């Protein structure tokens, strides 16, 4: 049972960054702009979030108010991502450039910038920004004592618990409400489906698209920090392709927030099974095959592909995504 608790808790901690970044991508695509740059945005968010956490750690203030510091770090990561994403918006909305151009440029810029900045701050060759040890939410955060022999629930809850988890779940709830129950959400979706029609009834398409990309930057930055915290070995100027996975999760989730949540959990579960193979008794071990763990590491990608092949006939991407809106072309 302990293994099950560990697997479930690891699944959630890896699903959280996927979920929030995929939601960000959804805001952007629902407004009509494909955001290939999510990977880069995550890196920039994680970079500034981690730098803040380190500064808080050095001053001693962070260890005294750990969760407040994490909250601030989340805000800073989101803000950094938001500012960075505006570059994409300028290129693909105002300048009407092909949306892959801005995205590729941002994806290339972010890791290089992170490495150069880390070098400049920490000295040559020092490429890892460590994460302070006071970040996780533990029993003591609530004034409780950790039990000697933690049960299923305690282990599930406190093995990998960070402030990012409740915040991202809150973002999910807010997103469902905003997209489907508010005037803003309806207008945002209309800009991604038929911007000419939206424009004809007085909606400022450019403003909504800018807002969509900015929200994706905000959520992407938060997701970058959530990923780095979950990975646990410090920030090394990379998010290991999670920005692209998030894009896949968003398509898998059919641009629908609740389905994206399901897709993120699904993908994360198989990812975790891939890395826990040794401790799961009922999985075949492929005796006689060297490095058989690669088989399990392929699993999440193969399973996702199979599911996509069966579900994509009904796939409904926003109709006008990827096409720069030009007022003069009605």
């Amino acid at each position: 049972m302990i293994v099950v608790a560990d697997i479930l808790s690891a699944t959630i901690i890896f699903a959280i960054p996927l979920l929030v970044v995929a939601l960000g991508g959804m805001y952007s695509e629902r407004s009509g702009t494909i955001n290939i740059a999510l990977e880069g945005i995550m890196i920039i968010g994680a970079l500034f979030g981690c730098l803040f956490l380190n500064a808080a750690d050095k001053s001693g203030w962070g260890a005294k108010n750990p969760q407040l510091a994490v909250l601030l770090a989340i805000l800073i990561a989101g803000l950094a991502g938001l500012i960075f994403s505006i570059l994409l918006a300028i290129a693909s909305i105002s300048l009407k450039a092909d949306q892959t151009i801005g995205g590729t440029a941002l994806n290339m810029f972010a890791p290089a910038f992170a490495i150069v900045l880390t070098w400049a701050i920490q000295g040559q060759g020092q490429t890892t920004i460590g994460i302070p040890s006071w970040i996780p939410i533990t029993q003591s955060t609530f004034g409780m004592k950790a039990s000697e022999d933690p049960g299923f629930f305690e282990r599930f809850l406190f093995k990998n618990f960070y402030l990012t988890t409740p915040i991202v779940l809150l973002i999910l709830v807010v997103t469902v409400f905003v997209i489907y129950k508010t005037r803003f959400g309806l207008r945002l979706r209309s800009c991604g489906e038929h911007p000419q029609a939206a424009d004809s009834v007085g909606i400022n398409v450019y403003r909504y698209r800018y807002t969509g990309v900015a929200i994706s930057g905000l959520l992407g930055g938060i997701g970058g920090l959530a990923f780095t915290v979950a990975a646990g070995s410090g920030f090394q100027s990379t998010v290991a392709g999670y920005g692209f996975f998030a894009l896949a999760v968003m398509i898998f989730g059919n641009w629908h927030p609740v389905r994206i949540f399901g897709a993120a959990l699904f993908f994360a579960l198989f990812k975790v099974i891939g890395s826990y193979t040794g401790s799961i008794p009922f999985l075949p071990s492929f005796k006689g095959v060297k490095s058989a763990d690669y088989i399990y590491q392929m699993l999440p990608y193969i399973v996702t592909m199979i599911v996509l092949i069966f579900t994509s006939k009904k796939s409904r991407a926003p109709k006008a995504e990827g096409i720069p809106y030009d007022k003069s072309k009605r």
Partner: protein
Amino acid sequence: MKNRLKGVLTSPGMISFIASVASIAIGLIFGYVLLVCFNQAQALNGLGKILFAGASSAEKFSKVLYQAAPLMLTGLSVGFAFRTGLFNIGASGQYTMGTFFALFAGLTLKCPWWVALIAAMLGGAIWGAIPGLCKALFNVNEVITSIMFNWIGMFMVNLMMANIPTMLANHYGAPNADRTANLAAANKSAIIPKWGLDTLFGSDYINISIFITILVALIIYLVLNKTTFGYELKACGFNRNASIYAGINAKRNIVLSMVIAGALSGLGGGIYYLSGTAQYTIVKSLLAMGFNGIPVALLATSNPIGIIFSSIFVSYIQVGGEAMQPEFAKEIIDIIISVIIYLSAFALLLKGVIKKIMSIRKAKQGEGVSQ
């Protein structure tokens, strides 16, 4: 009338050229500002290295060409798919698969180099065909399939290499089992011939691969611009519905375009790892060469002839970036390239403005004639 046609035909090329040069200049200035920010005393020296290190010696220049060859092919791969309206972000996986096929042919089957290169194209083509088929038959977005198959390809190649002892270095007396065998020890005939270029340049890195890749670029140019097939592919890229209406089989073209793009990337992997100077190391991250094809293609606006130059340019300043260490991180080069690509978005705007000005002027001239 003839003159006017000539003017229209020559001017857009000229405009793109001017715009590209301007973007490169601004990117380099941005890079210089970064150098000044991080280490003022060494900044000028660093910029000098970026600009001139690649041409400072015959050995350095052969390294430029050595890296430019695979980069040109992944760039062509991405650019070719772009022309058909597809975003081939899977060049990395196709490149890895091509590498595996080439090395399997060279190391285990003991084939000569040209057979191994054909095998590389086959491997890449298979890995490119999958996203193409998924898109054509099941309507799965090619971006997501390509991303998934980058990772599946990498893990699968690692798995297969670990289980084929004749491919690994320790089978041929070397101590390490985490990389493929040195071709010089395993099968000399699989090394791409050098035709005496190595003595001319005084470097082991140079071989005939740069000529092969330039030839491939020219063939791709001819296919895209002088054949019905190329026309159909481009028509699909411009407007898929219109091309279907005109009787073009769009699904077939999507698959074929991805197969060719995959074969190009796969050939890139073969070219790089059959040079005799590189050994594939079993790693758990995607190879950067595939992703670097995207900026190469974008810099050249997916024009095959342009890709010849953009790949050599990117490789040139990358060699400069390596020479810049340890005073500066070589990643500054990536920043410069990303700025240049970003500016190409502005270049499109610039082109539009220039075109508008010219058309207004032409319209005025036209009025003058009629009066």
